[in-house]
């Protein structure tokens, strides 16, 4: 389905992504983990074509994505939704308008200028918001919402695109644990109920373990691990994060339940 072959991205001297190979044959929920600066975001941005690859190819269902230009590239971007860490909504527009931005690829600039979205799209947008539990916020401005609600608006915008793939770049890094859970569950449900592929950059191990079918570990631009959450042992995790023996998974956790575990209390005792 999705094949990434020897994909690299170089910024001058630095190599952000170094010959990444990923092959996905059916819609899967994939978590990419690694330290900040490991190249996770760059990889996702290349898949969405927000940035161009230096070398290598991306192929989706037989079509070479990395070679698309102009309108064909924008058509791909409409089929491959992206969710950002800072939500990237238009803050001064209302929630429904932000969700309707998911249909921009099908609309002319003229129709957009006069806000001429079809009634069916507006109804669909509100239904998606209702599915994510924030329909009551529909007429409010996006900036008036809490972080967790804004991220769900961003997910609604992604769903409005009716995409095959949803890319999520650190979707929960700006959220508190409670909202992080809501957002991750929403992504998981979208994957299970709609059968869409979800690729999420995550900065905590336990989130990847809990929600993903497959985990990819990146370090310094290279893919150093690719397997099921069960194969991800503490030793492998230490390799991915380049951490020493004092590394404990619970110490990086954002889940509320883990806070009760003894090892965290120990870790906190050291601090």
């Amino acid at each position: 389905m999705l094949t990434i072959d020897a994909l690299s991205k170089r910024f001058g001297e630095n190599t952000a992504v170094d010959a990444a190979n990923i092959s996905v044959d059916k819609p899967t929920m994939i978590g990419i983990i690694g330290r900040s600066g490991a190249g996770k975001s760059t990889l996702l941005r290349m898949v969405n074509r927000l940035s161009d690859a230096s070398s290598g190819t991306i192929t989706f269902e037989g079509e070479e994505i990395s070679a698309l230009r102009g309108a064909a590239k924008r058509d791909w971007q409409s089929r491959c939704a992206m969710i950002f860490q800072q939500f990237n909504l238009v803050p001064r527009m209302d929630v429904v308008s932000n969700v309707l931005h998911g249909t921009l690829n099908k609309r002319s600039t003229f129709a957009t200028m006069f806000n001429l979205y079809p009634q069916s799209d507006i109804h669909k947008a509100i239904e998606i918001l209702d599915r994510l539990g924030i329909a009551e916020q529909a007429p409010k401005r996006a900036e008036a919402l809490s972080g967790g609600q804004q991220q769900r608006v961003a997910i609604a915008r992604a769903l409005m695109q009716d995409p095959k793939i949803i890319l999520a770049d650190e979707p929960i890094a700006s959220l508190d644990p409670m909202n992080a859970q809501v957002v991750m569950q929403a992504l998981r449900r979208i994957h299970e109920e709609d059968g869409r592929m979800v690729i999420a950059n995550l900065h905590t191990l336990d989130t990847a373990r809990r929600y993903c079918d497959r985990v990819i570990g990146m370090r310094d631009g290279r893919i150093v691990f690719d397997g099921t959450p069960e194969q991800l042992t503490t030793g492998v995790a230490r390799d991915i994060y380049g951490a020493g023996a004092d590394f404990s998974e619970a110490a990086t956790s954002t889940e509320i339940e883990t806070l009760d575990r003894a090892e965290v209390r120990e870790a906190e005792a050291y601090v």
Partner: protein
Amino acid sequence: MADISLGGEPRAVDGIQSSYMAQVQRRRLYGGLTLLIFVVLMAAGFNVADSRNAGGFWDGLHQIGDYPAEVLSEAWEKRADLPGLIAKYFPALVETINIAAVSTLIGAIGGLFLSLLGTRGLAKWPRLIPLFRRISDIMRAVPEIVIALVLIFVLGGGPVPAIIAIAIHTAGALGKMFSEVAENADLKPVEGLASTGATWSQRMLLGVLPQVAPNYLSYSLLRFEINIRASAILGFVGAGGIGYELRNAMGWGAGRFDDAAAIFILLFGTIVFFDQVSSRYRNRLTEGQGQ
């Protein structure tokens, strides 16, 4: 709480949908009315302007290319003279740039004082803030060319009236821009300096200027670009510089379109040059601080 309601009550969604649709309809109605009013006003205004116009817009429209075509063809015939003419008019260009530079410098100093005296929280005499603001409004409101015409009448032609005219306008314009920057300056260093017994000018010099200097310089450079254009225009009314030469050269039928072309090339080159230089410096000042 952490759970997402998937179904919800269908009635609630219907209500939200219809109330949002009503909101959208209202917004579209307002948008359409605004557009209609705009189009009607534009059309009506154009017709009024056109009927009062001496020549008539539509009658003159097809002749719009005649003058540039004649200048270009004549300049092309005498293209061999162009380098010599450019060299001939270069001193006049230098005079124009000098007028702009001196007036920008004087105007920026004036604007600096006007802005510091007219900003809340920084002013030496808070009660006089409205006075200094009105002074800078007046300086900004009177066009350079009006001041220059009056001064040329009084002082006679030459660069000095142009310098004074542009400096007055620049002081008013920069005073406004500077005070907007100064309003956002952090007052804590000023308070710290006041606690040591520093005078007003010491507080401004050490507490405010370091914060606002990059923005002030960037606005001054932008103003310098504008002033080059202004000083060229003032040449038309007898203030010297390249504008004076251009007015003499560009008259129809004088047979000096090659001179006019040379001056146009010089002006265009100068403005491009200073635009490039100042935009580079402005970028460095506003973005690349501390590097």
